[in-house]
């Protein structure tokens, strides 16, 4: 286990180096003058030269990269060209609201996906199976940005159930203000017992969460199904059957327990995808999170931000997967055998 952990961490560091090198090289290969953009319109030659020194762009490429890596470890992730703010600081400001919809989406995916996966395994080769396989493949095939707009059309435009965008309505934010503790409006308002704010924020987050749920839903359903199929065939299922447990209890209690591992794995794997999906949908929902921050950086080709976000998401992905593996190893000792 320890050896496995060390290997994983080393590989993770290697990957992060690789990612930083790829993004760094591409960003520097592009002929552009970040120093001129830093100053803004009507920059004079002297101002640009001064900005180059300020941004460290006057040094040789190799030194620039060393400095960049040094910065990554010391928390200096570069400075946004458009806002002149430290990238890491801004990332952390915008992260909680993205995590809110990512985790909400995953929760929905679990609540719907696991029963669906169990059903489809139990009723293998029937229409239920086909339907839920269709749903599961549909979930991973649907363009998230399109789903976001279709949900807005249906639930805002035609049904009027949910608001179009934003995290909370202005009136609620001003009349029932909350203290920012975690940055997640739902948690903060719940902790402070501000239920008016909570329900308003929840109402605003339903559509983004549903959009975020589509991809993990597909993955969870599929993983649950296939691991159920493996488990159902196993000997002890037959044994429990002999003891006369009813079919429903048997299926859920025993099979599901064994299907949990792959499902947790799949959630870990979809995490990075979910972070990337926020780039596509947060602008649709006017949801001020990591995704909106990134898509704006893309529109203004704010390359320090793009590099920072890429490294951040990669690191988050590696860490989450490491945690998933550790959790699995703790939950199920058999996993250890599979790991190496």
């Amino acid at each position: 286990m320890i050896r496995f952990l060390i290997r994983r961490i080393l590989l993770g560091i290697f990957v992060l180096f690789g990612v930083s090198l790829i993004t760094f090289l591409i960003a520097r290969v592009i002929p552009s003058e970040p120093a001129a953009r830093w100053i803004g319109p009507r920059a004079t030659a002297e101002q640009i030269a001064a900005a180059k020194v300020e941004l460290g762009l006057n040094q040789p490429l190799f030194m620039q990269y060393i400095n960049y890596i040094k910065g990554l470890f010391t928390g200096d992730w570069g400075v946004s060209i458009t806002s002149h703010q430290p990238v890491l600081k801004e990332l952390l400001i915008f992260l909680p609201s993205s995590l809110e919809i990512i985790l909400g989406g995953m929760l929905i995916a679990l609540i719907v996906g696991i029963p669906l996966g169990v059903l489809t395994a139990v009723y293998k080769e029937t229409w239920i199976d086909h339907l839920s396989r269709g749903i599961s493949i549909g979930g991973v095939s649907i363009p998230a940005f399109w789903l976001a707009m279709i949900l807005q059309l249906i639930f805002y435009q035609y049904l009027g159930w949910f608001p179009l965008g934003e995290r909370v309505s202005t009136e609620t934010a001003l009349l029932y203000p909350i203290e920012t503790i975690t940055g997640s409006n739902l948690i903060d308002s719940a902790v402070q017992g501000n239920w008016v704010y909570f329900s308003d924020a929840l109402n605003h987050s339903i559509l983004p969460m549903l959009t975020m749920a589509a991809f993990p839903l597909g993955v969870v359903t599929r993983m649950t199904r296939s691991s159920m199929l493996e488990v159902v065939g196993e000997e002890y299922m037959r044994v429990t059957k002999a003891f006369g447990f009813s079919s429903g209890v048997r299926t859920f209690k025993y099979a599901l327990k064994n299907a949990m591992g792959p499902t947790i794995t799949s959630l870990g794997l979809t995490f990075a995808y979910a972070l990337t999906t926020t780039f596509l949908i947060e602008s649709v929902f006017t949801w001020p999170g990591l995704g909106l921050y990134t898509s704006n950086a893309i529109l203004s080709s704010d390359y320090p931000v793009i590099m920072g976000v890429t490294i951040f998401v990669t690191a988050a992905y590696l860490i989450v997967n490491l945690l998933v593996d550790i959790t699995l190893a703790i939950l199920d000792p058999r996993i250890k055998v599979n790991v190496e």
Partner: protein
Amino acid sequence: MNTKHKPWYAIVLVSLFLLLSACSNDKPAKEADTAAEGQPAGGIAVYGSHDDIMTFWDPSDSYSNEIIAMNNMYETLLRYDTKDESFKNILAETYNVSDDGLTWTFTLRKDVKFHTGNDLTAEAAKASIERTIERGKGAAFIWDPVEEINAKDTHTLEFKLSYPAALDTIVSSGYAAFIFDAAAAEENGGEEWFNEGNSAGTGPYSPEKWDRGSQLILDSFDEYWGEWEADQYQKVVFKTIQEANTRLQMAKGGELQFVSQLPNELIKSVEEADGVSVHETESFQQLVMMFNTEAGPLKDSKVRQALAYAIPYDNIIQDVLGNTATQSFGSIPAGLWGHDSSLHQYNQDLDKAKQLLEEAGVDGGELTLTYVSSDEEERQIAELLKIELAKIGFELELKGMLWDAQWDMSKATNPEERQDILLMYWWPDYADPYSFMKNLYASEDEIVFNLAYYKNEQYDQLVDEAQEVAGVDRDKAIELYKQAQQILVEEVPGLSLYDRKYIRVINDSFGGYEDNPAYPNVVFFHDTYKK
């Protein structure tokens, strides 16, 4: 958990819940009843913008959307009123100019407090302008004619100019002309302190909370020198809502008092809705088409004229813009002094275009056009131009780019690598035609904004002379600008396609708003009230 403790736990939890929900219910009542005499009690006004409003908070440097909120936190000595072309005193009580136009003296208002708690003095005003000039960022160049600033006594401020420029327009600029408590700001940390969301201005509102990337909440300033009426707004919120549909729906739902821009495709649905209305106002914004006069087929003014005759003006204005613009006359927009509607306007006449091309001995070719990719209207216009220019034999390659990239390309050292046609919106830094006439077309040694690369000595002379007399003899300046514009119409180094109108969506309960194109997209919230 030990099961014995369960009942305890439940009781604590329930009572905590009740207590907290009781607290949260008190809040609105508190807000509503505290309106005392001379305090605003009109509630909240929300401004919906498509773009981030606050990025750089430093009043010296800010040269972008920030002015929308800044003009509510900061004030200038004078404010230009486009409607009657006059100057309103804001922080200045009176002012006068010497006969030679070189010395301007302003007497400042006496009861003014900065948000920092200090009093406005001539010394403070001098310090803020000098800070702006020293930093030299953003629109600081507007102070170029100023040679020195003197604080004659606590409330008298004197400017010495190097030539008789129109200082009244300069001090009323929406950029770089704010008066603020420079000393206190520097003590607190200068630019960084500003960028944390602080203000050192004198304006009616001061920042309360700033959620980066989504909203800025301003609160009314208790010690503001102007009067507060009960129907004025206590709080002003500036919201960034990129999605046009969301902006539209929020406006219709009464969540926004004011929306600065909407795609004209959505306007119709506002017109049909209750409780909101559409306001069209003139702006000083023109869509300008710059031709490359230095390289390629457009070197020849006949070819440029031919292009001017190939543009589908009516389609652009009626169909793409839904009549939210009017075709420009010359290069100075309507409403700005110097505008002249007697100048020749080009119309689409493909036969004439072909004839001009024949005279020039050019039969088409390939041209590159760059436009700002984030601007939906520019994109549509570019696509129309591609189709129309094909009819006179030119194949147009469209390049949608970020402004920075577009500008970089236009400044390429090799003229052959630059674009042939460049589309951009242009508007003045302050209400003066100089921005259009000098910046766009006067010869430049180093390319800045003359992206037509136009060089014409006669033109340069006319514009320079116009600028120098503008402070003392406005009529002469107008006449000189007219002659200069005639050269532009004749030679077509660039062409203003249309004067854009601003489309505002305004809630019917939102009173007192008047558009002032000298301060693009700014709402002076102290002038507004709840109906």
